[in-house]
């Protein structure tokens, strides 16, 4: 009834046919799956209404649903003319020059999980990235060492100012940059983005995944002198390059 798909630009929600109430409940169930919740946090969302004609109130409900889960509605598309009109009115057209996020009611107070911060919604909106410019996307900054057994998940980029110890995991929809020693497991481009990169001051992960490819550190006995390196996909393989400045 509702299909969720990860894309380069974020999360795409496809609304299928059927009663509005069941579509809504299906969407809620999918978004509230335990593993999904923290992962979708920060995701930019586009809704494809298909042939469905959505009312203003229904879009409002969808918007609230997303804000409650710290997700942001950016785009509304659909084949019905009414949908396009609604999208234009609410500034949710895909290629709007200066789109503004849908003005949403104040989100309800959210329980603060340890080691995470809920931004003031008004400030968050002011700082929201209006255009889906692939070179300017929100990143989660983790200012501590990720220890063994800890997992950090975010739908876009993740920067760790600290080490990632063996047994720790970092999973991002976008890039992963570690300003420290990366010795744990990482998965960049977790939604399937093969342009994502993994960088670290000392790159020695136990497991490295970008998009759908996986690689592991070469077997070495001696510690290398640490030098900054970037891993990316080239010619359908993960390669590691010395970081020489610039890109």
């Amino acid at each position, binding site marked *: 009834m509702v299909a969720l798909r990860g894309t380069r630009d974020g999360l795409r929600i496809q609304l299928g046919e059927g009663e509005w109430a069941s579509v809504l409940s299906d969407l809620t169930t999918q978004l509230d799956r335990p593993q999904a919740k923290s992962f979708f946090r920060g995701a930019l969302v586009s809704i494809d209404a298909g042939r469905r004609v959505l009312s203003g109130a229904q879009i409002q409900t969808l918007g609230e649903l997303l804000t409650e889960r710290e997700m942001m509605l950016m785009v509304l598309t659909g084949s019905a003319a009414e949908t396009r009109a609604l999208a234009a009115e609410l500034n949710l057209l895909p290629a709007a020059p200066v789109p503004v996020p849908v003005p949403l009611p104040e989100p309800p107070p959210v329980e603060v999980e340890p080691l995470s911060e809920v931004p003031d919604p008004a400030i968050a909106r002011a700082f929201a990235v209006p255009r889906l410019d692939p070179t300017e996307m929100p990143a989660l900054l983790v200012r501590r060492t990720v*220890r*063994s*057994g*800890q997992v950090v998940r975010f739908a876009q980029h993740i920067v760790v100012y600290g*080490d990632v*110890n*063996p*047994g720790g995991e970092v999973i991002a929809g976008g890039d992963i940059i570690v300003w420290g020693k990366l010795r744990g497991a990482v998965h960049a481009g977790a939604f399937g983005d093969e342009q994502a990169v993994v960088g670290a001051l000392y790159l020695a992960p136990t497991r490295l995944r970008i998009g759908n490819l996986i690689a592991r550190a070469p077997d070495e006995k001696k510690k290398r*002198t640490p030098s900054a390196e970037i891993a990316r996909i080239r010619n359908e393989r993960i390669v590691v390059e010395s970081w020489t400045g610039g890109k």
Partner: protein
Amino acid sequence: MTQVITITSGKGGVGKTTTTANLGVALALRGKRVACVDSDIGLRNLDVVLGLENRIVYDIVDVVEGRARLKQALIKDKRLPDLMLLPAAQTRDKSAVNPTQMSRLIEELKKEADYILIDSPAGIEQGFRNALAPANLILLVTTPEVSAVRDADRIIGMVEAAEKKPPRLILNRIRPALVRRGEMMDTADVLEILSIELIGQVPEDESIITSTNRGQPVAFDGNTPAGVEYGRIAERLLGKDVPFRVLNDGAGWMERVRGLFRRDQRGAS
């Protein structure tokens, strides 16, 4: 104000019980009233290491379940009247006590002692959680081995998540000859991964084996290598500034100095 110190590790067999017993003795020898608490229900060992297993009448589960009062279960060591033991039960398991009950019991125990040392079981399950709940200070014991350090790192993460202050590290069973040959991690290697404050470096010491079997902790004697270090850890716990010794005999010090330079040049983490 009574200090409640939990000794934990994650990995089993790295020396938590030995450390608890010896620190207990070392502190009691220095005039403090110490209560050692064995929270390893079902696999109790602290009583054996302290040589008090024949004197167990009631245990921690008896107190929690109301069959005995705390004072009835507390065993006073005849060698050191300021040292007490609250033993674990052997015929139950860790589900017999929960963190709230543990905290309440420790709160009551504070009236009897200046220092409470809780010997945590290995692992990260209920027993560990019970031992962690009432702690003011956590001592993390590890050996200089990759697997132990991995587990120790996990424990630090869980201590942070429980919103306690970061633990202080006791590096145990160090073999300076192996460190010199580059076959064993040295203190700096371990600290590089764990990044917590060191409080003790205990060398490998054969006399631990005999002392465990006899139920006479080495800290009583204070002349064995480990015994000396346990004494120094006790002094540090009491607030004294006791410097850390370089743990090897003179031959290797040049190599260590060179090693320090190399590490500095690579850049700090």
